[in-house]
């Protein structure tokens, strides 16, 4: 299996780059306070799908898929349902395993690891290590109903990153302020509206300070009047941080607003990609035109 990544980083480079040898200074335009969110925003390749195939039974969801995402980019995946968009996010989150091909994040294989010079399916420990850089927000929020809002957010920073309770709570309160829910810190998820729950879920994902944030149709389960609040929060994050975003959405205006790149999927392949201006105003592929005219 080829691994000719242009990224010079070797496979087993430490996860949090010490910065010095590779990126002498923080990327321009990143505010100091947010530098931690994504320390390596130099436009180098962050995510790579290399000839990935995923089948469910006889149905081929992803067909020999190749694509890369540069660090700091906001990429939206569009296409008809069943075209494999959500599968891509779930593969990146290791909720699914590819049948063929490899996925790398930050120059390290997510799905495989090298042992004695051979590429073998990754063990639990390796996956855990690479996966820490990825966060996900789900369509159904998936907050932990048995925990209050604050503990939903602090649980993983304390038990995965090893933060003290105080540090984690301070971080959680900052994030709750960002998503506008400071006064709900002691409530249970069931006491919140769908929109509020989703904003807690966003805060929970960000509390792990991932390099990559995956957004899986995050407004699809919401009542229409609650969608705007969630999208505003995400716009805010997209415009003020350099976190890399992969977004599956049917909110085309939102996609146009936050995306650097839009990828059009059809039958498990990327059939066209480009800037939102190009993709929404003047797509080349007839299938893209057909899809957009149906949803816009």
């Amino acid at each position, binding site marked *: 299996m080829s691994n000719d990544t242009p990224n010079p980083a070797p496979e087993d480079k430490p996860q949090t780059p010490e910065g010095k040898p590779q990126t002498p200074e923080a990327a321009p335009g990143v505010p100091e306070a947010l530098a931690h969110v994504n320390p390596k925003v130099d436009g180098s390749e962050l995510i790579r799908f290399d000839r990935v195939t995923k089948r469910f039974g006889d149905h081929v969801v992803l067909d020999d898929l190749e694509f890369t995402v540069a660090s700091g980019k906001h990429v939206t995946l569009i296409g008809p349902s069943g075209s494999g968009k959500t599968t891509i996010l779930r593969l990146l*989150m*290791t*909720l699914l395993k590819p049948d063929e091909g490899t996925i790398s994040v930050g120059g390290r294989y997510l799905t495989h690891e090298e042992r004695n010079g051979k590429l073998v399916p990754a063990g639990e420990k390796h996956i*855990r290590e690479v*996966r*820490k850089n*990825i*966060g*996900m927000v*789900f369509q*159904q929020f*998936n*907050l*932990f*109903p*048995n*925990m209050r809002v604050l503990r939903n957010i602090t*649980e*993983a920073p304390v*038990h*995965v990153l090893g933060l003290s309770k105080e540090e984690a709570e301070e971080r959680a309160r900052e994030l709750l302020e960002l998503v506008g829910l400071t006064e709900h810190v002691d409530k249970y998820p069931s006491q919140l509206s769908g929109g509020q729950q989703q904003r807690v879920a966003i805060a*929970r*994902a960000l509390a*792990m300070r991932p390099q990559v944030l995956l957004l899986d149709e995050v407004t699809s389960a919401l009542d229409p009047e609650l969608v705007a609040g969630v999208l505003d929060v995400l716009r805010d994050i997209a415009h003020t941080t350099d976190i890399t975003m992969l977004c599956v959405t049917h909110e085309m205006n939102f996609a146009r607003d936050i995306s650097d790149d839009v990828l059009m999927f059809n039958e498990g392949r990327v059939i066209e990609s480009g800037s939102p201006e190009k993709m929404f105003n003047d797509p080349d592929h007839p299938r893209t035109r057909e899809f957009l005219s149906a949803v816009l």
Partner: protein
Amino acid sequence: MNWDWDVVADFMPRFWDGVLVTLQALVLGSLLAFSLGLVWAIAQRSKVKLIRWPVVGITEFIRNTPLLVQLFFLFYVVPEWGPSMSPLVTGVIGLGLHYSTYTAEVYRAGIDGVPVGQWEAATALSLPRTRTWTAVILPQAIRRVVPALGNYVVAMLKDSPMIAVIGAFEMLGEARAFSNETFTFEAYTIVGIAFIVIAYPASLLIRAMERRLVK
């Protein structure tokens, strides 16, 4: 036959002995059934076949053979090559082990009832496996099944007279011995009432928990 209060008075000291044994067997047996059942339920979900298959086999075997036979086996056969245990300890182990195979099924249903999204969220946050179980899955699963577990406590209460066959004289065992010695019937009546006095409030408690926990 006439009801004789003097017989009742004669029986009372032995009745209280029996109540004590019944309650000990019930409380300790329940604790064993609750904890062991959880171990079975989790082991049955193990990815390792070498753990999963023996546990499935053992629990199926215990669930599908009579408690009475298991009690005899524990009391008369196990000491041949294992430890000798007092009748009460044997009774507690017998009841606990037998009912653990039922509570395991209850836990299993509770665990299966936790939405898959909860597992996915735990994975997305990279929560360690044990933390996922103890902080996310089990609190949600157990909350749902507390009433069902409570029903098995009542069932166990009603099965507790069986431990008299190995010499752990609980209420009914005491009553039978007393009645056989004195050719009277009052003791059985007292014990019958005692079962209701214990079981009915217990089932009310279970119903109250059901209202509070299962929304």
